[in-house]
């Protein structure tokens, strides 16, 4: 009859259990990793590290934006030790705001230039661990139904036949889409770049909230063309989706997946061990095995065969320092909001 | 010899009945004055009725005794003990609600056993007490019924049994008869009075029905506009109303204008139209006064007395009711039903019996 109160009493008792059994991660011999790549990649990475060093890892997986917000909110009393993976912008922002720790790893010499550049531009606070180029993918079935030629360049996406057939995320919410905005501005110059985006606007059926969503929509045929990072498209293609990834002929921008030690970590030594480990070729090879097709930053890491070959893609010289800064970002987004997003179609 | 629950229950005779005393108790809701500096005492073992029209503050007064409302000012004493700040739970007072407030999810016996069981009496003992009390109110055999399967009168008795089972110092009734039909009312009210006298209970009883009040009460407290208008035995109230309001509210008095002449001792000569009566003056000075004349204190004859004309007539079996037009106004008159019928339009002589007429103090 008084189920409610009895249940509440039981609940209260078990709440106490929850409270006590909650182990802090600050104990010696254990580090807390915020992982911002896919779960399948996070887990084997953690296993390998534990095996290699004997240090226990408490791992939490969150997207890079969420992790950034969390680290910022926790700044007064950091709970994490290291932030591994995720697109470079929020790492740069954290570096800019002093949320991450400077560190120079002995493995630095083995890295590609772009990874080291990320490190220098952030004054040693974040380093590149992989990179992925921006591109677009089309649904082969849809394209055939419409009888269209395969698009090869950014310019091809303006074709009137693709009206309402292109999908990309909203740069206000997605780092991917912001990379597109910055890429177009860098390739074409700001004025022409915005003209291009205004013209593209007529062909956009939807600005999605999430950056990778257009890849999925393309695989389902919900849109004919989707603009995302190419490794997201490759994941769909490997899964058997009728689509093809394209590296645009004018050249394209890219992201640098990064890693930062969280400022105020209670376990600096452990964090540094992870840092060094994550830059090793052995650790980076785990990505390909976990179906993540980004290009690793250690020169001697074998590149997965499915990965888009960065050597064959015309990469622009992306200015992460300029386009990663908060001020420039705010300005470009405000301009995009005002001049592109609200245009009538 | 000990009954199974003798440790927790006092026998009716030995039960200590308590008095209830209000000392200048006030209850305000915001700017609304519900009870205004009311003082009275209910003696142990008596049934006192709070009588008044709706909105006069009688139910609030009852709820103040129960502890369901807290006094804004003043003190409340039960059995000589100050309970002003005590909650309902902590007062030894039970209440029978107008709606009965029977718990719909419990059977009859569970309802009645509820009080003892929340006091920590073992279930079996509580149910034995409940069964005993149900027998007392004449509901033996209905213990396992659901409350919705009972008639209105039976539900009312369950409510009484539930309130009685704890043998509270004070028992409160909030318009207990309002949901019953006329015939049942009379019986239930007699039962309540009988029970009260048998168990020597202290009872406060709220009603707006003056006949009910007169029938059951040891004393009546008439309330009007959040204050006590008059307190007294039924007879005192009927025969000596302290105000126009009480005279009108109890016993349908005819209010007429008159003139007080000479005062001799306790009595005065009162001139009513062309009649002269000798009545207790009750503090009135010579000059204009108002009289309350009970309808049964007026007699109708062929001629003589005050001249009048029958305006309306109705036959109620036991009595006949007439409205008579006279020089002092329209009078409401009752005469025994066996008397000869008088048809409207007929001229009559109106006479008065002195003991049914009172001078109203101004």
């Amino acid at each position, binding site marked *: 009859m008084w189920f409610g109160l009895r*249940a509440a009493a039981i609940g209260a008792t078990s709440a106490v259990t*929850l409270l006590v059994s909650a182990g802090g*991660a600050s104990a010696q011999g254990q580090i807390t990793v915020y992982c911002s790549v896919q779960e399948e990649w996070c887990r084997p990475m953690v296993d390998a590290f534990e095996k290699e060093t004997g240090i226990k890892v408490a791992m939490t997986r969150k997207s890079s934006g969420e992790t950034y917000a969390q680290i910022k909110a926790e700044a007064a009393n950091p709970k994490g030790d290291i932030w591994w993976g995720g697109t470079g912008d929020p790492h740069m922002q954290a570096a800019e705001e002093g949320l991450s720790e400077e560190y120079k790893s002995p493995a630095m010499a083995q890295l590609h230039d772009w990874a080291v550049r990320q490190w220098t531009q952030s004054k040693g606070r974040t380093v590149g661990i992989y990179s992925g180029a921006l591109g677009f993918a089309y649904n082969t079935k849809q394209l055939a139904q419409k009888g269209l030629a395969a698009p090869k360049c950014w310019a091809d996406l303006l074709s009137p036949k693709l009206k309402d057939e292109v999908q990309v995320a909203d740069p206000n919410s997605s780092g991917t889409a912001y990379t597109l905005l910055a890429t177009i501005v860098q390739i074409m110059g700001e004025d022409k770049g915005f003209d291009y985006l205004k013209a593209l606007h007529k062909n956009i059926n939807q600005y999605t909230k999430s950056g990778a969503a257009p890849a999925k929509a393309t695989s389902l045929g*919900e849109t004919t063309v989707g603009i995302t990072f190419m490794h997201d498209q490759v994941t769909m293609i490997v899964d058997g989706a009728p689509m093809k990834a394209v590296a645009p002929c004018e050249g394209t921008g890219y992201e640098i997946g990064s890693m930062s030690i969280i400022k105020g970590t209670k376990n600096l030594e452990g964090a540094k061990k992870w840092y060094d480990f994550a830059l090793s070729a052995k650790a980076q090879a785990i990505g390909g095995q976990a179906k993540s097709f980004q290009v690793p930053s250690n020169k001697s890491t074998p590149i997965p065969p499915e990965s888009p070959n960065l050597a064959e893609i015309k990469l622009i010289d992306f200015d992460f320092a300029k386009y990663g800064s908060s001020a420039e970002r705010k300005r470009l987004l405000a301009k995009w909001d005002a001049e592109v997003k609200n245009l009538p179609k | 010899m000990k009954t199974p629950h003798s440790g927790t229950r006092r026998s009716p005779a030995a039960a200590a009945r308590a008095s209830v005393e209000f000392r200048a108790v006030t209850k305000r809701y915001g700017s609304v004055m519900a009870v205004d500096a009311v003082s009275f005492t209910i003696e142990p073992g008596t049934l006192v009725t709070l009588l008044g029209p709706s909105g006069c503050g009688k139910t609030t007064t009852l709820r103040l005794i*129960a502890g369901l409302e807290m006094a804004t000012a003043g003190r409340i004493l039960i059995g000589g003990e100050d309970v002003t700040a005590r909650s309902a739970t902590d007062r030894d007072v039970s209440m029978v609600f107008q709606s009965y407030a029977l718990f*719909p999810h419990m059977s009859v016996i569970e309802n009645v056993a509820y009080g003892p069981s929340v006091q920590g009496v073992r279930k079996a003992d509580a149910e034995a007490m409940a069964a005993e009390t149900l027998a007392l109110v004449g509901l033996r055999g209905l213990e396992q019924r659901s409350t919705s399967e009972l008639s209105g009168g039976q539900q009312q008795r369950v409510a009484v049994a539930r309130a009685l089972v704890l043998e509270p110092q004070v028992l409160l009734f909030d318009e207990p008869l309002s949901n019953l039909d006329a015939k049942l009312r009379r019986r239930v009210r007699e039962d309540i009075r009988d029970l009260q006298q048998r168990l020597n209970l202290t009872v406060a009883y709220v009603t707006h029905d003056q006949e009910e009040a007169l029938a059951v009460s040891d004393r009546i407290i008439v309330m009007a506009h959040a204050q006590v208008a008059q307190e007294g035995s039924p007879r005192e109230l009927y025969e000596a109303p302290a105000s126009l309001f009480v005279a009108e509210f109890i016993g349908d008095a005819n209010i007429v204008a008159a003139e007080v002449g000479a005062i001799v001792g306790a009595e005065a000569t009162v001139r009513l139209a062309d009649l002269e009566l000798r009545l207790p003056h009750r503090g009135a000075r010579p000059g204009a006064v108002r009289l309350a004349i009970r309808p049964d204190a007026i007699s109708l004859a062929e001629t003589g007395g005050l001249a009048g004309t029958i305006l309306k007539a109705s036959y109620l079996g036991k009595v006949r009711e007439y409205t008579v037009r006279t020089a002092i106004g329209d009078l409401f008159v009752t005469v025994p039903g066996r008397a000869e019928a008088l048809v409207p339009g007929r001229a009559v002589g109106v006479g008065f019996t002195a003991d049914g007429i009172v001078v109203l103090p101004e």
Partner: protein
Amino acid sequence: MKRSLATAVAGGWLAAGWVAFALLPWYWLDLSRGLQDFVDFPLGVGGSALALGVAGDRPWLLLLAFPLLLATLALVLPLARGPGGALLTLGGVLGGLYLLAQGFAIGLKGWDWGWLGAAFGGTPRQEGLGPGGTLLLLAFLLLTCQGLARRGWCRGDAFVVSAIGTVVALIALFVFFPVARVLAHAVIDPSGAFALAGFVARISDHSIWGLDCLAGPLRCGVAWNTLLLASLVGVGSTLLGLAFALVATRSNSRFKGVLRILSVLPIITPPFVIGLALILIFGRSGIASTLLAEWLDVPRSRWIYGLPGILLAQLLAFTPIAFMILIGVVQGISPALEEAATTLRAGRWTTFRTITFPLLRPGLANAFLVGFVESMADFGNPLVLGGNYDVLSTKIFFAVVGAAVDESRAAVLAIVLLSFTLLAFFVQQAWLGKKVYTTVAGKGDGGLPAPLPRRVALLAAAVVAPWSVFMISVYGIIMVGGFVKSLGRDYTPTLVHLSTAFRIDWGNHGLRFAGSAWDSFFATIQVAAVAAPLTAALGLLTGYLLTRQSFAGKRAFEFGTLLSFAIPGTVIGVSYIVAFNVPPFELTGTGLILVLCFVFRNMPVGVRAGVATLSQIDRSLDEASLTLGASSATTVRRVVMPLLRPALIAALVYSFVRAMTSVSAVIFLVSAKYNMATTYIVGRVEAGEFGLAIAYSATLIVVMLLAIVGIQLAVGERKLGRRAAPQPTGRTL
């Protein structure tokens, strides 16, 4: 004897306070380190306040003894009730305030209040409150309540004062405190200075309030979008819920049982899944679109992306909540009232229109409010189906975690959203007015519920039937999705997703949960099972206080209970980190913070259900119990709770399920040890692995269905002593 009981309770709390002060570990303990913290007891990490104050380096803790002494004096001295209560209250209030003040003033790294540091100097440090600190704080609170009760508050009822005090303190700590910390960003610029001008500019921004859509093909401000959507969802879900509730209680439909399950399914569905299923059915390449295009030449379109899609998904998701609130109310309407109307020559339709429907108003109003607020706070569906239709919740989410992080913008948008909630709350209150909706009175009322008028029955059936078919197809897709290779593309059956998530191996050490989802699955069930009863108890208790007790500030209190519900989860999540990551209340990384977050986020549904049901129950039932010598606590337990069963079920089910399915708030609060199923699922969805996400969701749905059935059985039906409609017995051949 009853006097001494009250004294005993107060004495008990006083004793608890002394024990907390003198014996228990004062600071937060990390028990994963075992008992090493107690090596130096009573000093050291696990030391008590008294010991650390006298012998350690934390002398400020000693001052806590004075308010405790005051309270002791109040109970020991032969004082009259009033003055004794005043002294007790003084001790409790002083103690509580000083305890909080020292906790906030002295933090991990020294003085947090600079001006105090300037006055006293030095760098004292301390950790978050532990068992001792928390218990003493609670003791001070309850001693204050006991004192106030002695001074005659709430009719001198210590239980009621304590309940109000506790609920208010909890809401202040776990709702107002964190939310205020985040919303403060709205008027504070990045450098930390107060900036009102910036706030005014941001809150009057064109992107929020623009009305361009009225004039041409442009978009309207996000505020209008949200308001439109929330109103449509509020009204729509209430009407659908009503139709379901009427059919489920008042018709002779054989499908009642199915209906009940069906109406509950959507709330037990993890987010994204409904949106995804809708795309697979109504998307441009969806099943329905394909059929229409091939058979009827209806051109394919993307109508699902935008307002229609979100509306559809939210109606699917929130109708069940409306249903659960309304079903209790529909059951509670006294048949006698309807019978009365019938005897007054009212036809069935008139009876329904003039009696039944008006009596449903508290239910309708509460259901609307919940639907409205849920729609505004929902962010999963707009995320998947929003298209170019922006709403506040997604805007806020991306202002917190998006490419352009802007806390002040997030705070401003949250304030706009909150003001809409406030508006809805007042509209609801105005519509309900001061009428009386009591239908369960203490007078046993027999009678049969009036059958539905034909018009209403037909209408309800016409709504319920297609909606049920629609839901069955949505769930068909979802169930299929977890067991085919790739939903929408390759329908080869497979168990691969399920085994990835929930594989169990027989290894050398026996059973091993090898699937990748097991950890989050167990953590989720544990957290949900703890949170649900606490949520229900707190919610219903609050509902009871709101309907049965009168006290100053009741309206503000009521609104406060709605606050956490109305704020988007993202904001709550961040606010919890900001507020509970540092002493004196350091909870991040524990399972408790998840439980607390769920309890205070989902409590409003318990409150609304409780308020709606209690407003039907005659107050004199409670009063009868009180005058029979039952305490308020006993009355709640023995009279109110049994009559509240429908509300209890609603609250339990809802809070259990929401703890298993909510995402946005939780994303910031999960830790390695306490990862939640939904964050795992969202990760899968982000990675495009819908098969795995759906297989996991399907498993959760099954678990939750079992839990709901379990809750129904455990709580049981409410007995109202009413006659049931005669069942047709015997079958004619």
